[in-house]
Every structure is written in C-alpha cells, then in structure tokens.
C-alpha cells in the first residue's frame, strides 16, 4: 500500500514542475522571432493598427506584468483565447475538442506497446540466445530505429493501398455520425453501439485507429521488450529464483510469480518516460494519417506566434506527462515498498 506521506510529497512536487514548465514556455516564446500583433492585424495594417492590437492584447505592458498575468491566469485555469489560429476561441475549448484525439492515439500506442512488448521481452529472456531471442532483438532494434514519418506512409501503402484492408486516414467513416461523449472516438462509438446504434461505427473507429496506433506502438513495443529482456535476464540470475527452483517449483511459475514482478519495475519507468515520447509521436502520426488532433494545431500556432495556444498546449502536455509519472512512482512503491524509503 502506498503511504499518504509519499503520495502527498509526490503530488506537491508537481507544483514546481509545472511552474518551471510554464516559465520556460513563456521565456522561449518571447525569445522566438515574430510579433503576434502584426500577424493579427494583417499585412496591410498600419503602425497605429498594430499598436492598437498590441495594447488590446496587453503586449505593451512591461514584461514582468505580462509574466505575472500569465501565471495568475494559469493558476485560475484561464489559458486565454487563441490570438490567430482560432481567433477569439478560448484555448481550453480548443484543447477540450482536440486533445482527446491525440490522447487516444497515444494511449492505444502505449497499450499495443505494453501488450506486445512485455511478453516478447520475457520470451526473449527465457529463450536467451535462441532463434526466438535473436528475432525479437532484431525486431526491437528495427522498431526503435525506424522513424514514424517513414513507417507511417509505408504501412498506408501496404495495408490501405495494396491490400485494401484498412483505411488510410481519418478517425471514422463519413457514413457514421457518432455523438460526442468523451471525444475518444472508439469509446464514443462503443457507447453509441451499446445504446442501440449498431456496431458498424465502432468497427469503423477501430479499423481507423489500427494503423496509426501500430505505427506509434511499434516504437514503444521495441523499447519495452528490450528493457523487459535485460531486466528479466538480471532477475532470473538472482538467488531467490534459484532457491524457488531448488524447492521444486516449476520454471514457468517461478518466472511468472517471482521474476516477473521484480523485473517489471524498471520497465514501468520506461513506460512512464515513453508516454511523453508517444505524445510527441502522436503529433507526428496525426499529420501522416490526417487525423485532426493537437499536432497540426500546435505547429500552426508556433508558426504564427499564437502565444496562448502554444502555452496552453505545452502546459497541458506537461501536466499529463507529470501525472503519468506520478502514476509510475505510485506503481513503483506498490511493487517494491522499499522505494518509499
């Protein structure tokens, strides 16, 4: 059981992390070239019009006033309105609509990575130096090395173009109009199916999700399986494993009962850190598969200097990442209570 003190300490540490991220984002955006007032006012705007926009946005205030206002807004959960990309729309509204798309992709990628990576890693360790081990290791190395922008189009060519098995882009076939409950299309379509709308939409959502999730999941799977293999190899050499075998316990039970739990601890670290990479990867995958998530929106916002949108998106990403890592910390201390010390 995780102690309350440990949990509170970890939770409190999220505050300086987010404060640090917010400050870094503020600094980097203000150091980057470009004047959002000029972009908003347009190319033909006069100097007076640009100045009026600057005053309206508060960009004429001293920089420390802007910084203070920015921090206050974050604390009060007011991420502001988009300057340019979706002019006048609150950043939180934009994120609420777009973030689930990216999050869903990252979650499915992570899920595939865990579902395939862990068994492959265990198999590779148990069958060390056999053909299974060699194949798994080569597969893992390939998975880590292949970039998403290359594997994505390749999978589209194979499964959508040549074999015609899976759709190439989008989130669901245009024939289906699924009501939005959570923003996660697979979940929404499942709820819709269970409430009597038919399973066609759910099937369509899953088939649309398979390719992008596989692209993003391969990298995750490769890393997890490599980590699981090395961790498992170390654990199987421990004295307690030999003792369990000497007492007559079967090999499979020894590995699953005593080895697996201990070998999982470093793998969980990788899964936590991976989540940030997956969010970044999801941004790239969205572009390849034409999925309207946060990725293209963020790139546009950076290009035109839409400060509130960039700041809001990065902050929400950082918050999600720190939350996942908090989960990882708590899982650690559950698996090995000594970690709390």
């Amino acid at each position, binding site marked *: 059981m995780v102690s309350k003190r440990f949990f509170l300490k970890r939770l409190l*540490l999220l505050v*300086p992390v987010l404060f*640090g991220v917010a*400050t*870094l984002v503020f*600094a980097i955006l203000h150091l980057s070239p470009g004047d959002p007032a000029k972009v908003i006012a347009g190319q033909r705007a006069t100097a007076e019009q640009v100045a009026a926009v600057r005053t309206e946005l508060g960009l004429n205030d*001293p920089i420390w006033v802007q910084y203070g206002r920015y921090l206050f807004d974050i604390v009060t959960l007011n991420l502001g309105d988009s300057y340019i990309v979706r002019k006048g729309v609150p950043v939180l509204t934009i994120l609420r609509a777009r973030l689930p798309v990216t999050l869903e992709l990252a979650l499915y990628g992570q899920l595939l990575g865990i579902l395939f990576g862990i068994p492959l890693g265990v198999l590779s360790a148990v069958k060390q130096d056999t053909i299974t081990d060699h194949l798994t290791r080569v597969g893992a190395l390939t998975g880590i090395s292949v970039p998403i922008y290359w594997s994505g189009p390749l999978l589209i060519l194979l499964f959508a173009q040549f074999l015609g098995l899976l759709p190439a882009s989008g989130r669901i076939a245009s024939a289906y109009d699924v009501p939005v409950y959570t923003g996660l299309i697979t979940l929404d379509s499942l709820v819709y199916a269970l409430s009597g709308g038919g399973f066609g939409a759910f099937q369509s959502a899953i088939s649309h999700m398979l390719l992008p999730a596989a692209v993003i999941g391969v990298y995750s799977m490769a890393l997890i399986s490599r980590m699981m293999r090395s961790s498992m190899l170390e654990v199987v050499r421990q004295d307690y494993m030999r003792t369990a075998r000497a007492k007559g316990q079967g090999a499979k039970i020894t590995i699953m009962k005593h080895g697996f739990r201990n070998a999982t601890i470093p793998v969980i670290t990788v899964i936590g850190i991976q989540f940030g990479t997956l969010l970044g990867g999801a941004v790239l995958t969205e572009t390849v598969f034409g999925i309207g998530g946060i990725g293209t929106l963020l790139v546009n916002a950076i290009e035109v200097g839409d400060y509130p949108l960039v700041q809001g998106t990065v902050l929400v990403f950082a918050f999600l990442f720190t939350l996942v*890592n908090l989960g990882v*910390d708590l899982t650690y201390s559950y698996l090995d209570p000594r970690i709390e010390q």
Partner: protein
Amino acid sequence: MFESRLRLVGSALAVGLVVGAGGLVFAILALGSVRDASETMFVLGALAFGFGLLGWSGSILAANSVEAMQEHLDAASGWTEQNSRRAMARIGSFGFGVMVGSAVATVALGGV
C-alpha cells in the same frame, strides 16, 4: 543547514541581481531601446529560472533513482542528488535575480 541553504540561494540571487542590472545597460547599448533590452534580459533570466526550477524539482523526483542506477551499473561518476539539487537551486536563484534585477533597473532608468 538552513544558513548554508540561505547562503547558496542568496549569493546566486545577488549575482543575478547585479548581472540583470548590469546586463540591461549592455543590452540597451546593443539593442538601442530600453523596452527591448528589458524584455530580453527579463526573458533570459526567466529561462534560467524556469530551467533551475524544473531541474530542482526533477532532482528531488528522480535523482535518487539515477544515482542508485549509476552505482548499480558500476558507473558512478560522483554525481549525487544533493549536488544536482544545489546546482539547480543556484541556477534558479540566479535566473530569478536576473529577472528582478532587470525589472528594477528598467524602472530606475525610467523605461516604464
């Protein structure tokens, strides 16, 4: 213990204040405008402050594990959680000093 921490943060803060105020003068000469110079110095300070803050909390969150892993792999390089935390506290305080120093100097120079 408290005194040494105060000295660590205080000295870095003092250096940051001087650098922030002095840097503002150089920045004005280079950029030609008090406003631009003030923004640049403040934002550079914020960069160091944000980095230090993130590094400090990251050190508390994860540095013990990194230290243990280094020892476990027999690759310890003398890097410790305490050293990391102190270094980050110093960088963060310095950055905060630059922010405050540049802001105060801007007001003193009548830049607002």
